[in-house]
């Protein structure tokens, strides 16, 4: 990443700790859902976030939008610090209302995220109302229909309810709702995971077209690295609340260096028998540890084939291994 790039969204040392229900008030336990994560997304590009369930992808996205108040860290949007827990002593908590319009989210589950009692037109219209973006009733209606058409639905659909739509169509409604307020930045949280393979490509293409048309910036969350690689310019890999590696998409795919990223990539089933038969999978031992009580030092050490006593003692540093390629591991020289 070039230093002079126009950064739209940046987080520094972001932390989000959730208290564990039932833990003692004297010795409170926390889930460190996001633990000291930093990244910057240049305007008009996509940062992909991958990792296994519970590693903190969704929480990163939601904390960045301040749907949760961050435990610590700094959030900078378009040059303005909109949140700072006082990293350098100065606390900031900006009024989010003007930013709510610019920063939108599309959810994983198109079934749960749409109000079943509202028509699709009103679901899209609600966002327009909240931000007073329509000059008149006609203007509101025009805007709704324009948005529905833009995502491949039509004016007839405006009067129908979410349950009358297929999964892919519902996801289009969710995207229309996010787009209706003319945002600059969208967190796409597993927007295609609930969809059939044949519908996934439709939605991916649409998100890409919309990005080009409106100059949108995305944080794209998914557990499917092939999809993330396809849509993202850069990719961050998370494990148990930590970012373990980050680089440009091709760099991650072809030259990743963290042992976890390597196993993640090798575990992806490739839809080509000649390749998949020839490739050797690195099958990791064991389960993902609980984020309430993560392993000391490097969180990955309980499953890492390269772990040494140092890995249990000391947390590995976040280092730039080549320009724009960051990784946190003690033993990069030994990883093959």
């Amino acid at each position, binding site marked *: 990443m070039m230093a002079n790039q126009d950064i739209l969204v940046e987080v520094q040392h972001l932390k989000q700790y959730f208290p564990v229900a039932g833990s003692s008030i004297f010795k409170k336990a926390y889930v460190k859902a996001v633990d000291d994560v930093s990244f910057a997304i240049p305007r008009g590009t996509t940062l992909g976030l991958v990792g296994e369930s519970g590693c903190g992808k969704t929480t990163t996205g939601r904390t960045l939008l301040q749907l949760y108040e961050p435990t610590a860290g700094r959030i900078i949007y378009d040059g303005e610090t909109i949140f700072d827990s006082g990293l350098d002593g100065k606390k900031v908590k900006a009024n989010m209302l003007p930013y709510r319009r610019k920063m939108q989210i599309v959810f994983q589950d198109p079934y749960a995220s749409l109000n079943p009692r509202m028509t699709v037109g009103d679901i899209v219209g609600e966002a327009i109302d909240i931000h007073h973006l329509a000059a008149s009733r006609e203007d509101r209606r025009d805007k709704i229909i324009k948005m529905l058409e833009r995502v491949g639905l039509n004016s007839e659909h405006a009067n129908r309810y979410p349950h009358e739509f297929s999964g892919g169509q519902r996801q289009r409604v969710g995207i229309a709702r996010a787009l209706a307020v003319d945002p600059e930045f969208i967190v796409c949280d597993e927007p295609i995971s609930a969809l*059939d*393979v044949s519908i996934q490509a439709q939605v991916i293409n649409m998100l890409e077209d919309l990005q080009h048309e409106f100059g949108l910036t995305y944080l794209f969350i998914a557990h499917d690295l*092939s999809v993330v690689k396809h849509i993202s310019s850069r990719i961050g890999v998370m494990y148990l609340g930590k970012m373990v590696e980050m680089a440009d998409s091709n760099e991650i795919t072809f030259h990743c260096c963290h042992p976890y990223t390597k196993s993640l990539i090798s575990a992806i089933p490739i839809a080509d028998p000649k390749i998949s038969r020839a490739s050797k999978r690195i099958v990791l031992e064991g389960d993902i540890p609980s984020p309430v009580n993560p392993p000391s030092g490097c969180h990955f050490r309980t499953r890492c084939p390269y772990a040494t006593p140092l890995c249990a003692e000391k947390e590995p540093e976040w280092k730039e291994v080549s320009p724009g390629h960051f990784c946190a591991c003690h033993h990069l020289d030994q990883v093959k």
Partner: protein
Amino acid sequence: MSEHLVDIQNLHLSFFTPAGEVKALNDVSLFLDEGEVLGVVGESGSGKSVTASAIMGITADPGRIVSGKVIFNGHDIGSLDEKELRKIRGKEVSMIFQDPMTSLNPVYTVGNQIEEAILLHTEKNKQEAKERAIELLRLVGINEPEKRIKQYPHELSGGMRQRVMIAIALACEPKLLIADEPTTALDVTIQAQILELIMELKNKLGMAVILITHDLGIVSSMCDRIAVMYAGKVIECGTTDDIFYNTKHEYTKGLLRSVPNLYEEESSRLIAIEGTPVDMLNPPAGCPFAPRCPQCMKICLKEMPPYHEFSDIHYSACWLTQKAEFEEAGKGEE
């Protein structure tokens, strides 16, 4: 007498719902030989699970086999009563599902549930069943099985629960394991573990496997043959190489084109299949894929394409591949 382990012949199965008849399976024919791994792919609602259940002799209400036959291990499944079917299930054929939590009983320990399966199908006594349960947990790669058998399902991770389900399924070393989206709810690194386990056990025990999935990557590395389903029909079936490298049906082609390729350096635009999946209450006349098919012809909208064989085991139902016959039919029309 059929020589295949599984031989499904022209199976028609419908659900008679208040809204009308849903033809969930529309003339499905499939076979599977001993020790073979068959992949079944297709989108949600295409009939994968219904086919699998039919092999087990299970048809959920209000479903009914309208015509056709399922032969499994020499048994004509349709002619057996519930008692006879129960003897086969778990012993000769077992099934594992996407969400192990729904098939495991939350109030019994893992040990109880495996032992129950053993006691039901073998002559073993309680002590022997317990020993076998521990042995099975070890077989499916669970550490400290003596400790684990005392635990309840909710105390285990998703991957471990799926291992327990596999242990139960294997209690009597069945000839056939049906795995219905066994890893869809799991993370990729855990998925890799479970898939490797299934293949290892298959080689060790010599059982046949039917692997149902929507993930073309999974079938590409694991299966000998693949059946592609669409709207209650097997629209193409062949060896894994046939399906990937000698693709005949337009839906299969579309499916293969629509997945992003991890190893391409320049992302090119994905080629999506347009339109929406079939409404099974109102399926289109003719080829069910016709409304979404870029190659759709006049005849596709009217008549269901018949099967065409490219080899003993590679066949597909698409008018395009039958140009000669198509021209014949076209002549008749004009």
